[in-house]
């Protein structure tokens, strides 16, 4: 049930732009969900255009590479500005689903069309058998998730208003 909730973003917690994190011995999962008043194709374009992220998303310093299934990207975020995360685009269903990750973690972006807009859900699960050893050193994602989502909502809704 927990996995279903996390995948679909249907849990009560994590909705309306507030991130929630659940911790287990070998993993940690952060999720957030937000209604965006813009067509899924606008939200999708923002999420799948690597070159443009830094312009609108204040949590991303840069993304190099193409966001295409099977491709690898190099991501720098404000959460760990000195690190470059080498991530693989694991799955893409245009306007619906984007998953990227590495051996340690997996981030899932899911879009669902709602009346006059889009339900955006973002989940990141990190974990492994070694997770308990370094769990304390990994900062909370909550604030960055909320900022990412707020930036996405603001940008997508601004685009939606273009006449």
């Amino acid at each position: 049930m927990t996995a279903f909730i996390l995948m679909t973003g249907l849990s009560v917690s994590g909705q309306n732009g507030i991130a929630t994190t659940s911790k287990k011995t070998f993993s940690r999962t952060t999720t957030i969900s937000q209604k965006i008043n813009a067509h899924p194709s606008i939200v999708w374009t923002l999420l799948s255009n690597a070159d443009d992220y830094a312009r609108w998303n204040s949590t991303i310093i840069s993304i190099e590479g193409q966001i295409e299934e099977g491709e690898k990207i190099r991501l720098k975020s404000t959460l760990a500005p000195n690190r470059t995360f080498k991530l693989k685009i694991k799955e893409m269903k245009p306007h619906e689903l984007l998953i990227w990750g590495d051996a340690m973690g997996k981030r899932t972006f899911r879009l669902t069309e709602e009346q006059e807009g889009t339900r955006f859900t973002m989940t990141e699960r990190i974990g492994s058998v070694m997770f308990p050893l370094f769990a304390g050193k990994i900062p909370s994602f909550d604030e960055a998730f909320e900022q990412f989502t707020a930036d996405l909502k603001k940008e997508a809704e601004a685009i939606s208003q273009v006449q």
Partner: protein
Amino acid sequence: MNQEEFTALFSEIRPQLKSYILRLTASVPDTEDLVQDTWIKSSRNLTSFRGDSSLKTWIFTIASNLVKDHQRKWKRWPENVTDICKEAAMQNPQHFQEAMQIVQSSQYAQFEIKEHIAFCFTCIAKSLPLEQHLCILLKEVHNFKIKEMATILDTTEPLVKYHLHAARKKMIEIFDGRCALINQEGVCHQCTEINGIFNPKQDTQQELMKIRMVRDAEKKDKEHLLDLRMEVLREIDPFTSSAHELQLHHLEHNRRVMESHLENKE
């Protein structure tokens, strides 16, 4: 619509089409070829024009497809194109000699800052991804509606909105950082420098105050300043303006410099 009616309507649209294609390709010979190709393709396929859109939209669709095919082989220009081209011009005395000859011999070489503003946009907009470049010109210069642009570019309205929005944001950011006309800390003064060369007796400050974008710069509304920049573009036909021979010579110089610069970077 018969061929005669089509020919008359195409002739009406031709000047707009030429300026659109020139601002996309930055090449007069390529523009002439692409306008001719658009004419051939549209007149041959006239029977397939069903009137679902206006004739202008239909012709711009054909032209945009030809431009997209044509531009695929060329790399996009860098944002600092005018710096690179200025440096190349400084090292090429022949370029200035030719320009001075044009000034002395042509009645269409009366340098105006306004024209250089439009010229500068043409060069810098070539740093945008092609889809964004197409969108900003179609909307801001040629007044197409979002729905018509989606038809012209064979895409969806949300995607057109995205490209247009992203193009505007990018152009605002670049000009805010570069253009000394709208930002005192802007690094580029080329339009006023060149005005000093071609119009040495002119009071440059007085000339600048004739331009609304410069007058409104203090308000610091960046969206508004881009709108005013686009207004300058709408007012200027790069093939018939009062300094078009000079500006086209300048554009050809920049295009050659860019081709060589991008080739050397490979």
